[in-house]
C-alpha cells in the first residue's frame, strides 16, 4: 500500500472532533485498540489499522461524514461486512473506514413487483430470509452469504454457485441510493427497468466502492422453485469431465449449477466431510430445478450425456437427504482445505471450452513451484477457484504462493478469460491489471472515477496498479494517453 499522507495523519484530532458533531459518540471509533478491529478484511495477509472508523446509521449520516472527509481531503474506505477476499476493504493508516453494518433494515417488500428494498449493511442471506416465508428468494449466493453484506456484493458485483441460471449481482440489482464523495445523495434506477439515460447503475455495480457509498438497494426477488435436485458424476479424466460440461450446456438444458472438483480437492473434502465421494480425477455436481416431473425430464437428458462419456460414478439424488450428502463435500471444500493447510483462493474465469487445457497447465505450474493446487469451481460459467496450498509460517512461502497465483491468473487471461470472476480486484490483483488491460483501457476506467470522485479519495489505492493511478491519487492532473 502507498505510504500514508503525513498531512492527513496530523489532522486526526480535528477530523474526529468534526465527525463527533455529526454522529453519535459510539459511532466514531478512534481509539487505536478499537480501530484494530478494522485492520483487515478476509485477505488477512495484509493489515493496517485505519485513522478512525465510523458506523453511521442513516444515509444522511453517511452524507455528513463524506462531506467532512471531502472537505478535509481525507481518504475513505467503505466497508460492508469485511469479507472481501481481495482486500477491497483494507484500510490505509490515513483513511476513515466507513462501515455500513449498522444499516441493515428491510425498507420495503413488494411481491407484485418482485423487489425488496434494503439498507446495504444487511447480509446477503438475510435478504432471502426476509422473503422466504412468502415463497421468494434473492438469487445471488456468494459462499460467504451468511456473513457478507449487500454493500460489498454491489461493490464487487458478487456471484455465487447459481449464476448460470440467475446471473450475478448486477443482473439482480434494480436500483441504489448512493452518496457521492462530495456528500450528495443520488438515486440510480429503482423498481422500474432500464435507465432513462446512461446506465450509471451498471457502472456503479462492481466499482469496488470507488465511485460512491451505496446505502440502500432495490433488489430483484424471485419465486422459489418447487424443488431442486443434484446429480453427481465422476470421471477419470479432467478432459472428459470438461467435455461433459460443454455438452450439457450445448444440449440446451440450463442447470442452476455445475460444480467441478479435481482429485486433490475430492480427497481432502471427502476425508473432512465423509461425503462418500468416489476417488477419481474429476467430479461434477449438476443441479436442476422445477417440479418432480420437470427435474426428472432434465436429469434424463443430463445423465444420458454423462453416460456417453463413460463415468466412473453417476449418482442421482432420490431424496433431500441424498441431495444434502452430494452437496456436503462441495460446501465444506474451503473448510477442508483450511484444516490441511493455509491456502490462497484464486478466482479467474476462463471460457468453459478451455477447462481441460487450463487444468493441465495448472498441474504443470503446481509441480514447477512445488506447491499443491486443488481445484474447485463453478464450471458452468468458467469461474475457477484454484486453491494454492502453502505454509504461512515458513519464510518465503507466501511470496512463492502469490507468484504461482499470478502465473495462473495470467494463464486465465491468455486463454481468453479474466483475472477475477466474482471476488474483485482490490489490492490482490491490482498489479496484474496490466496483463488484462492495455494502458488506454485502464485510462478509460480511471476517467470514470475522475467524474465521480475528482479528488480520488474513495478507496483510492485499489483496482488500478499503483504507478498507474499515482498522479491522480496525488491530486495531480490526469496524464494524457496518446
Amino acid at each position, binding site marked *: 500500500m502507498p505510504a500514508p499522507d503525513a498531512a492527513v495523519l496530523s489532522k486526526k484530532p480535528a477530523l474526529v472532533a468534526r465527525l463527533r458533531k455529526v454522529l453519535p459518540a459510539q459511532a466514531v471509533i478512534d481509539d487505536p485498540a478499537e480501530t484494530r478491529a478494522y485492520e483487515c478484511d478476509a485477505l488477512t495477509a495484509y493489515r493496517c489499522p485505519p485513522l478512525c472508523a465510523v458506523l453511521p446509521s442513516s444515509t444522511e449520516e453517511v452524507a455528513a461524514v463524506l462531506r467532512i472527509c471531502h472537505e478535509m481531503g481525507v481518504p475513505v474506505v467503505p466497508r460492508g461486512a469485511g469479507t472481501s477476499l481481495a482486500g477491497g476493504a483494507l484500510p490505509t493508516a490515513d483513511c476513515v473506514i466507513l462501515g455500513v453494518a449498522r444499516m441493515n433494515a428491510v425498507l420495503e417488500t*413488494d411481491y*407484485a*413487483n*418482485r423487489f425488496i428494498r434494503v439498507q446495504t449493511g444487511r447480509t446477503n442471506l438475510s435478504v432471502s430470509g426476509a422473503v422466504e416465508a412468502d415463497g421468494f428468494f434473492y438469487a445471488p449466493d456468494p459462499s460467504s452469504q451468511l456473513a457478507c453484506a449487500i454493500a460489498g456484493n454491489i461493490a*464487487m458485483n458478487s*456471484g455465487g454457485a447459481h449464476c448460470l441460471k440467475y*446471473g450475478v449481482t*448486477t*443482473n439482480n440489482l434494480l436500483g441504489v441510493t448512493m452518496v457521492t464523495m462530495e456528500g450528495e445523495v*443520488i438515486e*440510480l434506477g*429503482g*423498481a*422500474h*427497468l*432500464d435507465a*432513462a*439515460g*446512461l*446506465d*450509471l*447503475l*451498471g*457502472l456503479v*455495480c*462492481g466499482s469496488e466502492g470507488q465511485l460512491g457509498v451505496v446505502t440502500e438497494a432495490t433488489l430483484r426477488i424471485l*419465486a422459489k422453485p*418447487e424443488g431442486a435436485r443434484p446429480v453427481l458424476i465422476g470421471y477419470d479424466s479432467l478432459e472428459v469431465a470438461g467435455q461433459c460440461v460443454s*455438452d450439457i450446456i*450445448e444440449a*440446451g438444458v440450463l442447470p442452476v449449477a455445475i460444480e467441478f472438483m479435481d482429485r486433490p480437492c475430492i480427497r481432502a473434502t471427502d476425508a473432512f466431510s465423509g461425503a462418500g465421494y468416489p476417488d477419481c480425477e474429476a467430479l461434477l455436481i449438476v443441479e436442476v430445478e*422445477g*417440479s418432480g*416431473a*420437470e427435474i426428472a*425430464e*432434465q436429469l434424463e437428458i443430463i445423465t444420458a450425456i454423462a453416460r456417453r462419456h463413460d463415468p466412473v460414478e453417476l449418482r442421482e439424488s432420490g431424496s433431500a437427504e441424498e441431495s444434502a450428502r452430494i452437496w456436503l463435500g462441495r460446501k465444506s471444500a474451503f473448510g477442508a482445505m483450511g484444516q490441511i493447510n493455509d491456502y490462497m483462493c484464486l478466482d479467474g*474465469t476462463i*471460457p468453459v*471450452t478451455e477447462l481441460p487445457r487450463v487444468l493441465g497447465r495448472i498441474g504443470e505450474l503446481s509441480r514447477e513451484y512445488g506447491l499443491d493446487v486443488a481445484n474447485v469451481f463453478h464450471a458452468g*460459467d*468458467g*469461474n475457477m477457484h484454484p486453491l494454492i496450498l502453502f505454509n504461512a509460517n515458513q519464510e518465503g512461502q507466501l511470496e512463492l504462493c502469490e507468484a504461482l497465483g499470478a502465473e495462473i491468473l495470467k494463464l486465465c487471461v491468455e486463454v*481468453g*478469460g*479474466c483475472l*477475477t*470472476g466474482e*471476488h*474483485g480486484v482490490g489490492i490482490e490483483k491490482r498489479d496484474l*491489471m496490466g496483463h*488484462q*488491460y*492495455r494502458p*488506454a*483501457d485502464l485510462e*478509460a476506467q480511471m*476517467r*470514470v472515477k475522475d*467524474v465521480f470522485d475528482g479528488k480520488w479519495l474513495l478507496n483510492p489505492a485499489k483496482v488500478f496498479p499503483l504507478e498507474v493511478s499515482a498522479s491522480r491519487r496525488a491530486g495531480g492532473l490526469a496524464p494524457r494517453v496518446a
Partner: protein
Amino acid sequence: MMRPGTETELAELLRAARAPLAVRGGGTRGVPLAGEVLETGGLSGVRLYEPGALTLVMGAGTPLAEVEALLAEKGQRLAFEPMDHRALLGTGGEPTIGGVVAANVSGPRRVQVGACRDHLLGVRFVSGAGEVVSNGGRVMKNVTGYDLVKLLAGSWGTLGVLTEVSLKVLARPQAEATLVRAGQGVAQAVTDMCRAMGTPYDVSGAGWAGGQTRLRVEGLAGSVAYRAGALNTALGGGWDVVEGAESAALWQALRDVSPFAGQPGAVWKLSVKPTEAPGLLERLSGAGVDHEALLDWSGGLIWLRVPEEGDAGAAAIRAECATRGGHATLIRAGEALRAQVPMFQPRPAPIARLEAGLRAKFDPRGLLNPGLMEGA
C-alpha cells in the same frame, strides 16, 4: 457518409474529425441526428462462436439477421429478444448487433432473463477522442475493473463507436406455450401478470394487447405442458392455451409493437413499476391525453400511441413517470414534434451532471451524436 472498414481506420477517422458525426448501425431506428453519418456496417463479421460456452463475438456492424441465422443453426438464440423497429417506424435498412447493443434493445423476455446489457459480456469501442478501448471479455463472470460494458450498452453512440461486441447466447427451447385471456381491462391484466410472475413457473413473457392478456412459458416439452397447466390453475382457471408458431407470432407482434405499425400518431415507450401502469394510464386519460396502450414486461413497459398534436402528451407523460419513478422515451415522432420534445426523459440535475461529465471524458470534443440523450 463515412463507413470505416476496420477499427484502426475508424480510430484515425475520429481523431481527424472536426465536426459532429451521426453514429449509426443499420439506421432502422430513425433517430434524428445532425452531422455527417458514420456507419458501422463495414465492421462486420463473426469473430468467434462457441456454442458449448454460450458465447458469440462479432463486429458491431454485423447484421442482426446474420447473427440470428447463425445461432439458429446450432439451436441457440439471443435470449433478450431484440425488437425490429422497421415496421413501427416505417424505416428501411438492416438492424445491426451494434445498434441493438447501443440502444440496449430488449423484448418481452427481458422480464425473465434480463436486458440486452445483461447478456453483453464485452465491448471494444473507439472513443470520441479516437482511442481504442476494450472492456469485459467473453466469459460470463468477470469483475475485473469497472464495468464499462454496461455503460456502453444503451449509450446510443454518445461515448464511443462500438467496433466489437461479445454476447452470451442461450439455447432455443424445445417448446413454448402462451396462456391467453381476452376481454381483460388493464387493471385486471396487470394483476394477473404480476401474480403469474410471482409463481415458480418461470414465466418468460407477460403482456397485454387489444384487451388480451398473454403469459408465456418455454422449455422442455413436458415441463411447458406442466407449467402452463399449473399457471392456469394458480390464476383461477379459464385461460386458453396456444402453442408453437401461433404462440411465437403473438410475442413477435408484441415485441415489434405491430398493432401501432401503420397507425398514425406519436409512439412513446414508458418504463415504470408494473403496478403503476393502470393508475398512470387513468391519470393520462383524466388529463386529456388520448391514447392507445399495449403492455409488456408484466406492465412495466407501456407502449403508448397518442395523437401527434401539441407536445403529444409529453408534459403529462413525463410528469407521471417522474412522480412514480420511471421514464418515457419518445420512440416515433415527426420532425416538428422532435424539435420541441427531447427523445429521452430529462434526469435530475446531479445525475445529468455525472452523465455530462462522462460524455466530456469519453468524447471531449462533443463529436458523437451531440444533442442526443442530453439532459436535465
